[in-house]
């Protein structure tokens, strides 16, 4: 039988993968992908816990996150295209203009 813990472990693993992606990747596009993975890890956890408690607000929250993520990607990708046009690269090591 697949229980709550299994879902939470999957969600945890997905989150860890996303986090490692955020830390290790140098390409901005890849960072976006990694954040999407982390958001979906949270969605999985929300949906599972919602089902477990028989409370729909968790699932509502998951939908909310999907909607926010979609709009974020729409704006974020637009910004990335502009940035690429301007700088010719999306590599973070080449974009370090704010050194203090």
């Amino acid at each position, binding site marked *: 039988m697949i229980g709550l813990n299994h879902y939470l472990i999957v969600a945890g693993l997905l989150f860890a993968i996303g*986090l490692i992606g*955020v*830390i290790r*990747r*140098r390409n*901005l596009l890849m*960072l976006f992908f990694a954040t999407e993975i982390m958001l979906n890890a949270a969605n999985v956890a929300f949906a599972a816990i919602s089902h477990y408690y028989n409370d729909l607000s968790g699932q509502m929250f998951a939908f909310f996150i999907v909607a926010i993520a979609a709009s974020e990607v729409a704006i974020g990708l637009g910004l990335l295209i502009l940035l690429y046009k301007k700088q010719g690269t999306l590599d*973070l*090591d080449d*974009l*370090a*203009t*704010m*050194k*203090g």
Partner: protein
Amino acid sequence: MESLVYIALFAPLVSSLFAGLFAMSPRQTFVGVVSSLLLFVSFVSSVLLGYHIATTGANVHVTMMDWISVADLHIPFGFMADQVSVTMMVVVTLVSTVVHIYSIGYMDHDKSFNRFFSYLSAFVFSMLVLVMSDNFAGLFIGWEGVGVCSWLLIGFWYHKPDVSREENPSISPSWAANEAFIMNRIADLGMLVGLFIIFWNTGSLQYDVVFSQIPNLAPAVLTAAAAALFIGAMGKSAQFPLHTWLTDAMEGPTPVSALIHAATMVTAGVFLVIRANPIFSVTPEVSYFIAALGTFVAFFAASMALVNRDLKRIIAFSTLSQLGYMFAAAGLGAYWIALFHLAAHAFFKALLFLGAGNVMHAMHGELDIFKMGGLRKKMGWTYAYMGLASLALAGIPPLAGFFSKDAIIETAFNEGTLILWAMLVITAGMTAFYSFRQVFLTFLGDERYKEFGIHPHEMYGFVLIAMSPLAILAVIAGFFRDWFNSFIIHLLPNYEMSEHTHHLALILGAIVLVVAVSGIVLAYIKYAKGLQRSEKTENGFIYKLLANQYYIPKIYEALITKPYAEISKLMWTKVDIRIVDATVDGIAKTIYKSGDGSRKMQTGNLSNYLNWMAGGALVLLFITVASYVIG
């Protein structure tokens, strides 16, 4: 009548503010004229008030507004004109009017002419607040106000550099001003403690409330209050051991010396004792101490005046000595005689100082009487004025000093304090000697100033005319003694000589007179023909002791000033720099270093930031879990 109180009080303030408007601009004669007129208005109001009080016997009491009203403390800005304060008002405003007019002539070459009038009028205002206030707090405000004005005026020529004590015993005007101010702070602490004791035990600072509660107070409390108040009086009236500032205060312009350091401010201590006489009359120990100290100072100061060569310093010592007389009278319970001597002294001492100012003006700032002589031919009027004032000071009848000083000496006899009496009689002889030593050395004998290339000239006519009221009063003030007695005893306890003294009065007066006249004769024999200096006397121990003011300034410097400076230096280098500064600097450096260290985090690379963020999130997660596990 109330408006007269306000006019008398605030005309000097208006004068001060008006002159203050022109403080930074070049000399304007009209500033002095307007100031003098306003002071004259104040004088006229005071005289009218005095006339009103003398004829009706009713006091004028006004409360302008509430000043402090906190919990149980209610202090109004209240002013009153009663017999004592109106006497002081008339004396203060009269002398200051004369001094203001005098200053127009005396300060005519000074570039800070306008500023001088501003300070001088501010002083008069403070002095009037002091004498007119109906409570101790207002008195204290005036007390501090005159202190500030005294500081401003002693240090009026603040640009003069410091010189060694051998060259000028008071070092420099700014040094003398600071000395006067600091010495007065020491005494004012005593005064404040006295006010606290009074308020603590009576719950009020109003004179009438405080005095009505005296029967309910414990003797120890009253003694403490009286002693603390007298410490305040000792500072302002320059009594031993806080006397050194007064002679150094002669660094100020001469009109200031005449007004502040002879006629008015220094008598504030005597005024305080007279005003608070209900407290002092029930504390016989303190009162006897006041009398003994006063007598001692009278003798002590007169002895230093015997050998001094500085014209103004001699008069300053004489002021000190006369203040001693006033305290002796007040301490022996003869408050009205003290007040009478205060008034009479104000007239002839101001006249003496203004005369000295004329001489100084003529001699281009030279004050050494050994370099003068024979000035009578050039300055007949000044000679007459100073001679007159000296006769009054020496107590020669029928001049003012005879009536007031003789009464004090008689009081000492009447109280049975024969030692005090003897000292006061001897002092009277010394007073006569040093006064006339100074007059003869300045005005008679050979013209020693010629070898210094000085061409003296008489003062302006209007200045000499302005001085005449003082001269007239120095002559006739004594005749008002009986009238003054009947006027003042409405407020002050009367003091009558006993039958025994009354019988001896003529003999006692004769003794004083003989001593005084012999002092004058001695001075005439020694100095009228010219200056004969003898090496032997001047190198003698006593002469040197007196000329160096008993070495007291040097002792103060060695025992107080220098150790204090050393301690201050030690505190500066060891405590301030090593501990206080080091702590503050340490905090700043820690913050600066941590900022400088964490600056390296800001690489500008988003990936690094994300790593930091992830690390931070992990740390927070760890802390949350750990606290959950532990707690």
